[in-house]
Structure formats: C-alpha cells, structure tokens
C-alpha cells in the first residue's frame, strides 16, 4: 500500500530505569516512499527508536506520528499501517513457514481464502515456496530473515521498519534482501525505515541517512550531501620506481593540495572532485611516469561520523554501555 504520510518525530525520548536516556530528544522526518537509513554504533539508540515508532515502547517524552497516526494515542491505527522485521528474527522454531503465515494472516483478520492466496504470494516473493512446509528451526539465517520480511508484509503495510535486517547474513542473502527492499520502495511506494550498523547498506539503499550516537542525531541528509560536507576525495599514487616519487608528487600537485598518505605513496586532495581522476591518469602518463598503485579515497559515512563525533563508527559501540540491550522495563 502506497504511503502518504511518512514518519515525523519531535523531541522523541526514552528514559529507562536508572536515568539511562537511550534516546535523548530526537527529531526525525521521513518522507512518504523514502528509504531512510538510521545508522549508529551498538548502543546508540537505534532499536529503542524503532520500538517507540512501532508502538512497542511508549516514549517518555516527545511525540511521533507514523502513517499520520500518533504512536502514543493511536497505537492500533499505527500498527495496522506498519510492518516490522525487528532485530531478532522473532520466529517460532517449531512452526513451519506456512504455519507462521497462516497465523499472521489470521491475526490480521483476513478471510480464509485470502489467507492462503496471500501466503503463497509472499512465499514466492521471498523465495521460500519450497521450504514452506519445513519447520523454521531447519532454516538458514538468510531464510529466517526472508520469512521475517514476508510476515512483516502480510497485511500490505505502507511503512516498513527493518531493524538491522542483514546482520549475520552472507553476502548473497544480504544482496537479495537489499533488492527486495529497494523494489518495495520503488514499485510499491512503501516507506522504509532501516536501521543498520553497516555503512555500505546505508550507502547503497538509503535515500536519506540519519546518524545517531548516544541517543542524539548527529547528522541527517543524503549520503552524498553528508559526505560532501566533510571533504572532497583524495587520490594516492605509489610509483613503480621509488626514484620517480618526486616527479609523481609534482604532477599530482597540479590537481590539489598535498595530504598525508602511505610512506611510499603521494596523495593529494582533488580540487575538482572524483571527475578529475581521468585527468590525473592522463597527466601521469604524459610525464612517462609508471605507477605500482593508484587509489581514489572517497569520504565515507564513517568519515562523516568521525567528523561529527570524533570517533569511528565501526567498532564505536563495542565498549560502551549497551542501552540497546536494556531490557524492556519490567512492570511494577
């Protein structure tokens, strides 16, 4: 179902017992039909944000509207408009794929004939038709994730939440999932809110990216704009003959200022961006200089995170208090 409202959050916060603010007043806006990548290290507040937006956890401050409904006061309407594949695959190992879909469609109130048709359609879409009558405990990690996605799509939601959907998957399964997510947004107009630790995933899939750290949004924009914000690409050349190093340096310096590189190489920041790479190659060739290695270094989202927080995104969450794994508050 095509989404017409998207997601908006203002000052959204969640405080746990002991004063832990896992999400510390964030503002978010996701346009209808957009794929929004929510990036951050372990413990940054990604899953807590998703749990609030999907009504599984009430916010302790702020507001959020999903598909036009208030998460705090119109929970049932929100849930009818969204699908979610959360961090755990959330499957019953003793049930088959078919039985999962049967249960899910039944709980959404679908008539019996419609349940069968919809189950078959989704199984085919995620490539699980042949495994449908096997118990889930016999499924591989990739198959479980695909079934998870199918279950999230059962009722044709207009907004889809995916919480680290490709963690632990092999490259093939990951690519398959990316393809399906992109198709959902492109062809079905589904808004996708995707959390991930993988820079590549956000880069490849997301129309816009939000980066969260310690419960606060530190950057928000398209991947290209965020990267452009922090700098232009650089090129590094390692000469085949060490004696030609000075000559290589003189040639490269025509294209931009020198920057630190590897001990054997020469690196400059390209004033004209990536497009200048061809000119660099032609210039070096014209001077008769031979290279052992030539590399373009483009800014990554990790560089964006580093610029905003002073830390690298990869490995940033490993030693920190993991608010993501904070259990849901035990009822009094």
């Amino acid at each position: 179902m095509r989404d017409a409202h998207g997601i908006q959050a203002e000052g959204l916060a969640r405080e746990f017992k002991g004063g832990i603010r896992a999400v510390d007043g964030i503002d978010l806006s996701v346009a209808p039909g957009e794929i929004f990548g929510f990036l951050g290290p372990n413990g940054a507040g990604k899953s807590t944000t998703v749990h609030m937006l999907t009504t599984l956890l009430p916010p302790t401050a702020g507001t959020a509207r999903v598909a036009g409904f208030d998460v705090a006061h119109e929970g049932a309407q929100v849930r009818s408009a969204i699908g979610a594949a959360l961090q755990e695959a959330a499957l019953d190992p003793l049930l088959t794929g078919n039985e999962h879909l049967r249960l899910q469609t039944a709980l959404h109130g679908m008539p019996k004939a419609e349940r069968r048709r919809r189950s078959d359609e989704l199984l085919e879409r995620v490539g699980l038709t042949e495994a449908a009558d096997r118990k889930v405990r016999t499924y591989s990690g990739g198959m479980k994730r695909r079934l998870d996605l199918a279950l999230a799509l059962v009722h044709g939601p207009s907004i889809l939440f995916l919480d680290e959907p490709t963690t632990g998957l092999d490259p093939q399964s990951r690519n398959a999932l990316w393809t399906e997510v992109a198709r959902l947004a492109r062809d079905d107009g589904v808004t996708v809110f995707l959390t991930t630790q993988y820079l590549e995933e956000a880069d490849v899939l997301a129309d816009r990216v939000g980066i969260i750290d310690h419960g606060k949004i530190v950057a928000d924009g398209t991947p290209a704009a965020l990267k452009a914000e922090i700098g232009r690409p650089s090129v590094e050349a390692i000469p085949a003959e060490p004696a030609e190093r000075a000559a290589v340096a003189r040639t490269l310096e025509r294209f931009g200022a020198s920057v630190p590189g590897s001990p054997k190489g020469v690196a400059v920041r390209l004033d004209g961006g990536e497009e200048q790479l061809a000119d660099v190659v032609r210039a070096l060739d014209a001077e008769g200089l031979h290279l052992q290695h030539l590399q373009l270094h483009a800014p990554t989202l990790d560089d964006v995170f580093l610029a905003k927080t002073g830390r690298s995104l990869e490995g940033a969450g490993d030693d920190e208090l993991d608010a993501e794994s904070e259990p849901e508050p035990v009822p009094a």
Partner: protein
Amino acid sequence: MTSGPLLAQVVHLGRRSVLRTLRQPVNVVPSFIFPLILLAVNVGGLESAARIPGFPTDSYLDFALAFTFIQGALFATTNAGTDLARDIQTGFLNRLALTPMKSAALLLGQLAGVIALALIQATLYLTIGLVAGVRPESGVLGVFVIVFLGVLIALGFGAIGAFLALRTGSGEAIQALFPLFFVFLFMSSMNLPRNLIEIDWFRTVTTINPVSYLIEGIRSLIITGWDAQALALGFGLAGGIAAIALAAASIALRGRLARS
C-alpha cells in the same frame, strides 16, 4: 484490516500452542512418564501403609492416583512458562503485539496447549489406573469430573507459569523455580491422609497447603464417591488459583506488551 473476534484469535493462537506443545516430545514425554514412575515407586513402597489403622482405603494405588494429576499439572506450569519465556526472548511476542491481536487471546491461546496436554495426561493416568484395578467410587460420571478437575488444576498451574514467564522473561528462572513447586507437592497430603500425619507441625503445613485440597478433591472421587466438602474445596481452590493466576498473568502481559 480488522482484528476479528476474540474467539477466532484464541482459536488461532490456541492451535499454535497445541502444535508447539505436541512437537516437543523431549518436554512432553517426561510429563507423562515421571508422574507414573513416581506413582509406581510410591505405591510399591507404601502399599503396606494401607494397613495403618484408619487408612481410608484398602488400596494404596486408589489413594495415590490423584497425585499424578497434580504432578502432571506441575509439568504444565514449567512447559507453559518456558514456551512463553522463549517467545519473549526470541521477540515472537513483539511480532504478535504488532498484529491486531487482543491480549486476552494471547493468554487464553497459550493456555490451550496446557489444556490439551492436561486432557491427554488425565486420560492416560485414568486409563492406567483403571487397568491396574482402580474403580472410582463416583462411577462413570465421576471419571469425567476427575478429568475436568484435573484440567482445571492444570489451567491454574499453567497460568502461574505464564505469569512467571511474563514477569521474568526467562525460561531459566522458571526451571529454577520448579524445585519450589516440588516442595509444595511434597508438603501436602500426597502420601498419607492429613489425619494420619503424626508430626503436628507437618500436619499443620499440609492443612494450610492448598495443594492438599486439590489432591483430596480428586482422591475423594476415587475412594469415597461424592464428598461435597472435598469437592467444594477442590473445585473452589482450583478455580480460585486459576482466576488469580489468570488475572496476575493478564496484568503482567499488559506490562510486558506496554503498547499503546
């Protein structure tokens, strides 16, 4: 998409619960076998106790059969609890919470597995008892009442297991509490009638312990016939435990789901 009536949801969740229970023979089979082993051991070892002056029946088997239902119900507690705890740990409960499922449907559906197991257990224990020579004084109707009371007790114990699962979210915690339930069973009139327990403080404990009355309710249908007081206490306590445990589990479920 609408949510559908409560009954339909209970049926769907109940179907899943029953399937899941029956697909775990490692959990299900001991719940049949252990009570029978303990029955065989106790009857074999205490048969001569039927010769104690004032013992209410000539057959210790008739006296002891009731206990198997209670022990079976104890397994129901741990099975229901660990299954629900697993749903919490795997996130499956969250998946259900995102559907239009009513909370009551989850609990009742969950307990459908307990009821199914209890029915099979009760039928098995009674069949074995009948084959071994037990003849319930309450007749054919009494057999159905025994099954009904057995299932009601299992429902109450299963609801306790569900409550513990929802409060702790941990199957290990429930397994760790299993011995505590065992204490309740042993500190009851499972082995001797209360009036034949010599040690005063032990007799007092068994008199306070509600499990004694659950056992005595079933036992009365086998060795006495239609004992209004024993049945009233048995049904009353079984119903009371079930009602309180279901209420507690509902409150715990509301807190666990915490959804708007």
